[in-house]
């Protein structure tokens, strides 16, 4: 079962022309994120295997292999956090929260998502600041000979997308009757057979 391989445009945004455009954009961001995730994982496997083959068949290591994996792991992590927020998959300790009444939970969830969005925006800002510092330092990756800051370019994007996801979830909780863990996921854990 794979209900979000072709996810429907975001229902939280689906009234009005502007919202329709926003929903479209959000839909494409989701597709793009999942594409980045899958591709980066596949490339990581290919790169690591190529290094083994290089060493054993051609007697020479791919000296840039480690640096390529560094780039990929950053991409996976920071594409992953946005995608995980979209699907309500971030780890939380919900024992106390679950014991609270419906109304309190609703208010709490709005507060949690708004606060999380704020923190993600703050980190987005600081990551841009950090990247520009690394960029001006002129540091380069020793093997690939490309600027180090290239590795980090996905970081602010990931934080920003995650912030947007949390904001949309807050919006959804404000406008809808149920409690939403993310734009598309209702509170309470999914059936464990459901894949992402």
């Amino acid at each position, binding site marked *: 079962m794979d209900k979000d391989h072709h996810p429907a445009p975001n229902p939280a945004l689906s009234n009005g022309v502007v919202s329709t455009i926003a929903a479209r954009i959000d839909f494409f961001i989701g597709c793009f994120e999942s594409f980045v995730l899958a591709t980066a994982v596949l490339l990581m496997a290919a790169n690591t295997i190529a290094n083994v083959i290089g060493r*054993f068949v051609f007697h020479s290591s791919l000296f840039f292999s480690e640096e390529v994996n560094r780039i990929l792991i950053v991409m996976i992590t920071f594409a992953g956090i946005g995608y995980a927020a979209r699907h309500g998959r*971030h780890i939380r300790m919900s024992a106390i929260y679950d014991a609270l009444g419906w109304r309190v939970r609703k208010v709490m969830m709005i507060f949690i998502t708004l606060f999380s969005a704020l*923190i993600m925006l703050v980190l987005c800002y*600081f990551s841009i600041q950090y990247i520009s510092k690394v960029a001006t330092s002129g540091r380069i990756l020793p093997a690939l000979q490309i600027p180090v800051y290239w590795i980090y370019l996905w970081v602010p994007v990931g934080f920003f997308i995650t912030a947007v996801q949390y904001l949309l979830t807050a919006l959804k909780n404000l406008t809808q009757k149920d409690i939403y863990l993310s734009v598309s996921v209702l509170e309470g854990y999914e059936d464990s057979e459901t894949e992402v």
Partner: protein
Amino acid sequence: MAGIIFLVMIVLLLLGFPMMIPLIVGAIVGFYEIFHGIGKMDFMVQQFMAGIRPASLIAVPMFIFAADIMTRGQSAGRLIEMVMRFIGHIKGGLAVSTATACTLFGAVSGSTQATVVAVGSPLRPRMLKAGYKDSFILALIINASDIAFLIPPSIGMIIYGVVSNTSISELFIAGIGPGLLILVLFSIYSVIYAYVYDVPVEPKASWSERLVAVRKAIWPLGFPVIIVGGIYGGVFSPTEAAAVCVLYALVLEVIVFRSLSLEDIYKTAKSTGLITGVVFILVAAGAAFSWVISFARIPQELLETVGVADMSQIGVLFVISISFFIGCMFVDPIVVILVLVPVFAPVVQSVGLDPVLVGTIITLQVAIGSATPPFGCDIFTAIAVFRKPYADVVRGTPPFVLILLCVAVLLIFFPQIALFFRDLAFS
């Protein structure tokens, strides 16, 4: 400062915030206090990057990917069915096999997180089917995976050896005794559990049935050959072994068994990426938080107040155990070792403790701490992979942690558990 940080973190944690938020806020408060404002906060991002930089972390997504392909396809099922033909009729046999598989895989792969996924994801459904309770299964997988810290090659021991100037070979041998002891105790507990909850057994398989099962598992038996043979045979590093497993799993499931389509593989890769992101953002945020703790010299200040300098050997061992246990509950084990070992080094020397024993005890505490709430990488990984709430994942852990703590205390009073093999090999 330490007080405020921990308070804020615990409150956010208990209120049900996504777990990265308490870690990040803890780091933000720390940076604010240390630098009197937000001026240097961009360095949090530097530490985020430092957290996910170690090349050995690559093994985690690779093993997740390989395990997921095997589980969605037929490889994992065939391997497990083969094992079941041999042990299915023994009470608690499946649980003991799972514990052993976790220990062996963890020992070889060097990554406890990878173990939770690679062994846990195929075996958990089978154990559920056999009638074990999920809380028991999850706790068994998490804790048995952590035995791997003690069995060589152990990255924790390598780091300890380098920082404390101790023979790594001796540490490796010293870890085996306590590691096996824990495995035996976990196995005993599993059998008792199976009897108490009367987990049903399967009828004993005939030798011809077993032969059929082995034949069906011939191809998938290549996985242990790749992992064990590849790593100990010097063909590749654990990280590379993980990637080669991905390739082998692809070949088996797509070409040999034809059980997965290329689209399935793409979906599996996506799911692997998501789980990796969920776990690694916590690793990254944890690194920023650790930096704050380390920079502000909080461990050093706390230990000064404890007055460890005037204690006896046993007292020092207890303080070391407790410090590492608490440290690893909140911070990445490697950082805890790097920060605390030099702090304890003078007192270890002055009371005349064997650094190999100290290293073994520290490694054991690191293992316990990594499987103990609130912050434990293996717990996070289990939550992310098995999609169970936090409380469910840790519900079954108390008996296991109790066993581990007993071994820790035993080790303090009977160091021979660790040193017997060492003395045998090095004298």
